[in-house]
């Protein structure tokens, strides 16, 4: 699941590893999403979250409803946007036109501190494999993470090309559903479910 929206999201500012908390509307969205998720999957959930506040606050809303506590996992944190963090896309386009164009075409820009797609995909996939592998049959594990991190981790698990992405951006508070079975392995059963 992608975290609920923050003030930076509304302003169109890149967050990456910046720890921007949810505002009042984000907290409200998290509550709605938690209700939708529990309605869809029942209250018996294991909740794992990125340690960044916008994710952990979303995860806490779900965990409260499920009567559990969210577990933080650094591996599902957002990709770093390096020197672009805190800027709007308009500012990025003006100040880094060549690298913006590269990013716009779906490729990794060559800027200081950028989290490379293959590294991000690998760490998120590793966390999903480990967290879901440790769960029992019919268990539901909810992982609250971030736009790019989710796309890359899911693409890595499914064997989809990472760059340019073949998966579209998720709305805030929306989720994907993957199932893991012995016979088939990982399978994407839903993508882009909107909870609010």
């Amino acid at each position, binding site marked *: 699941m992608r975290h609920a929206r923050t003030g930076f999201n509304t302003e169109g500012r890149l967050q990456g590893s910046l720890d921007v908390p949810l505002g009042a509307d984000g907290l409200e969205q998290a509550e709605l999403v938690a209700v939708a998720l529990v309605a869809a*999957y029942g209250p018996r959930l294991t909740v794992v979250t990125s340690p960044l506040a916008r994710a952990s606050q979303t995860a806490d809303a779900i965990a409260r409803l499920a009567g559990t506590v969210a577990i933080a996992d650094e591996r599902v944190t957002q990709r770093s946007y390096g020197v672009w963090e805190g800027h709007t896309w308009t500012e990025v386009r003006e100040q880094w036109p060549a690298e913006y164009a590269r990013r716009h075409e779906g490729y990794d820009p060559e800027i200081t501190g950028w989290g490379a797609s293959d590294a991000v995909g690998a760490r998120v996939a590793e966390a999903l494999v480990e967290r879901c592998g440790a769960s029992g049959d019919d268990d539901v594990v909810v992982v609250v993470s971030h736009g790019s991190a989710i796309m890359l981790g899911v693409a890595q698990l499914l064997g*989809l090309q990472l760059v340019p992405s073949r998966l579209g951006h998720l709305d805030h508070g929306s989720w994907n559903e993957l199932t893991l079975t012995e016979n088939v392995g990982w399978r994407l059963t839903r993508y882009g479910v*909107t*909870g609010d």
Partner: protein
Amino acid sequence: MRRLFLVRHGETAWNVEHRLQGASDIPLNDNGRAQARAAAPALATLAPVKRIVSSDLSRALETAHILAEAMGAEVVTDARLRERSYGVWEGLREDVRQVDHADEHARWAQGLEPNVEGYEYNATVRDRALALIEEITAEDGTYVCVSHGSTTRVAVAALLGLELGSRALGNLGNAQWAELTQVGDGPWVLRSLNASSLSAASSTVDA
């Protein structure tokens, strides 16, 4: 930008009985019609098209007409959106195939293609479905196709660059859809899959 919605037909009696349909022409049941009616407003909002292209098999065609009514669209049929033919397996439940066609069922269960008479291979299904998709999406715009579980899975896998036999994508549920977009000559991107019905999230999507 091109936006493509691939919709699976509503439920049929054979879906309920878990019998493979393939090219067999099995009509919607009442629940299937209700599923199509329930899906129509959301799809009409997302994809207000003037024309729906549908498989000519009646379960798809009736679904398309129900959806089209909500959009004020016309329906045209194209056999390239038909379900994969399962040949002599059509009408058979999995437990029957497992007993009567043990070797081929074992191949199929491993994700390989069965060698049974009349079975239509992945590459053939891809070729016909993609030919239709390329034809109708020649220009930017929004397009809606009503088709079938296996054919849409093969088409989506092909559009996303997955192996055709890949099991990485779940089947569409009845009256559910996949949305894909393409900008210019760029790659097709998956926007949503089985995402329209929250209440259905608690039920297993038929694999």
